[in-house]
């Protein structure tokens, strides 16, 4: 009798603990894989555009994306294929006069993951 009861109790215990929760969060890859560019400063002299920035660490960096967004929201990007670069220059850039642009920058790794976007810098075109 007791053996039968123990068997049934064991079956009940299995029923409770048999439904386990095996779900686990995947490895968090996005934090710390790429640093955020800081001190972004842009300059326009005539049609010569330049932007500089700083990186605390260039680990995993393959290059940088420089983004120019005008007041209508249209975005134009440039890729800097140099992990150690801290500046980008472009001569003869045609920008709309009488408006301003938001300049942002982010690092890119070897699989095309975009790191955190820098604080924006404003470029006024007179």
């Amino acid at each position, binding site marked *: 009798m007791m053996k039968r009861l123990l068997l049934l109790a064991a079956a*009940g215990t299995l*029923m409770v603990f048999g439904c386990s929760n095996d779900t686990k969060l995947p490895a968090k890859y996005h934090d710390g894989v790429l640093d955020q560019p800081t001190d972004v400063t842009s300059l326009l002299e005539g049609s010569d555009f330049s932007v500089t920035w700083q990186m605390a660490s260039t680990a995993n960096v393959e290059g940088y994306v420089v983004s120019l967004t005008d007041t209508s929201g249209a975005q134009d990007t440039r890729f800097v294929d140099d992990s150690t670069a801290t500046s980008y220059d472009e001569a003869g850039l045609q920008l709309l006069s009488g408006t301003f642009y938001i300049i942002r920058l982010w690092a890119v790794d070897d699989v095309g993951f*975009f790191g955190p976007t820098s604080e924006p810098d404003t470029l006024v075109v007179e």
Partner: protein
Amino acid sequence: MWRLQRIIVAAGLVLLLMATGSTAQGGGFQLKQDQVSGTQARLLSVLYPGLGQLAVGHRQRGTAMIVGHTAFLVAWLSSNSDFGTHEDQFDLESARYLSLREGGSFEDATEAWRRLSDRKDDIDQAHTTRVTFAALTAILYGYNLVDVFLLGGVEPPQDRRMSLSPRKIGEAPGLALVARWR
């Protein structure tokens, strides 16, 4: 999952009818006075908690066990189904987060991670709920076994305070409600 629940509830009702021993004949109900042996009652209670107790006449205890066990069982199956839904959503969010590793951005990955963490919280909560109801189901079933095997839960009631008894009322058959008190 709902089909399984309906089958379980239907099976429970069939067993309940079998246990109460009531049959409809000629448009009316006729009480059957067949005695259920202790072994049969125990077997019924092993099949479904409360059936054996009900069969020997412990109506309140039997009904309480049947209702309680059915409620816990349905809640357990329902929470289990809920857990499965959350698990599917978690897998979907997990795949979305991992897909952003190549070609995604830090901001999108941060947002995907936040949603994934929320799904994880949901899944943990659903798991706690289903384990709670599974435990309650198992505890009630275990108590039912202890009741029928050790506490004499399938012994016929010794002192019924109220019962129905067949009586002749004039020439016509009838039923009398008999109340006893000490």
